[in-house]
């Protein structure tokens, strides 16, 4: 399979920048964005929706003309999803078994 490495690199960097922009936006206002689109979290272990959107868009660009770009984007977003799943699983494991919390208000 012939792959234009430069185009693939542009695809990978583009996906990384899109991911970074979404992450920075969340970190600036976590309380506001938590559980809002595109940061919905159906599972504590699987990454939130914004990460899947980056991966989905990468997959979407795997058309004929943008195939190499999409391949590069997938090379970024695939391991990104895998890595974040591992990190989140470790975090959930840290707080399991669940704690007892009293809130008086």
């Amino acid at each position: 399979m012939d792959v234009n490495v430069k185009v693939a690199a542009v695809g990978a960097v583009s996906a990384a920048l899109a991911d970074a922009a979404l992450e920075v936006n969340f970190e600036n206002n976590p309380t506001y964005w938590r559980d809002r689109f595109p940061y919905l979290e159906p599972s504590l272990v699987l990454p939130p929706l914004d990460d899947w959107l980056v991966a989905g868009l990468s997959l979407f660009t795997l058309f004929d003309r943008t195939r190499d770009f999409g391949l590069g984007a997938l090379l970024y977003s695939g391991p990104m999803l895998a890595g974040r799943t591992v990190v989140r699983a470790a975090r959930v494991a840290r707080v399991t078994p669940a704690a007892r919390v009293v809130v008086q208000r």
Partner: protein
Amino acid sequence: MATEYGHAWLGEIIRIAERFGHTVLDLSRDAATQERLFTALAEFQPDIMFLCSHGNESQFSGQNGEVVFTACHNDEVMAGNQAYYLSCLMGEALVPSMVSKGAVTVAGYVTEFVWVIDPAYVDDKLADPRAYPFMRAIVESSGRLLEGGSWQHFYDTWVAMCNMGVREWFERDDPTAPSIVAALEQDRDSLVVLGETSIRPVQEALARAMSPLPPALGVTLLALFL
């Protein structure tokens, strides 16, 4: 009004706790009494507590002004427990007294806890943009504890979130911006965490068991690439 905002903010903390699967005992409004709290301490045996109400240097109150804790009177019931008090002035005497009686870690404020509100949002307090930086600092720092962080993490997040709010409002074109910045700086410097700051209130037994896994996985993948 003051505790209404705290009530809404602690509701967000409950939401985060429940997302992690923690069991939450919500002593809200009429349930926010000394009797209910002391019963919870004895029978529910919480890993951590978040409490919001009026307070002063030596007292913490519950619903309708009932005094719940008084320094050197009944604060020994906090022995062995960890808590964050969103309440004015308690850090002066009551928090140190609780720790001296055996409380593991207690956080509170040495001055009055101050914040700014937009009266247009009294019916939707979580959407109040002026109160938001205060809520964010409280909710995110508490969230660190609920996700397994230590009290040091809690304190560092608190300072970072207050500083973020100061940066955001420092040059904002809003007549209340100077008050918001001043209040954030006061609250930031007012929080004290006494007792064991390295301890993590939430169980981490499985984390220790699992902790070698992510680095091992990373090294394996790296070796495969090479």
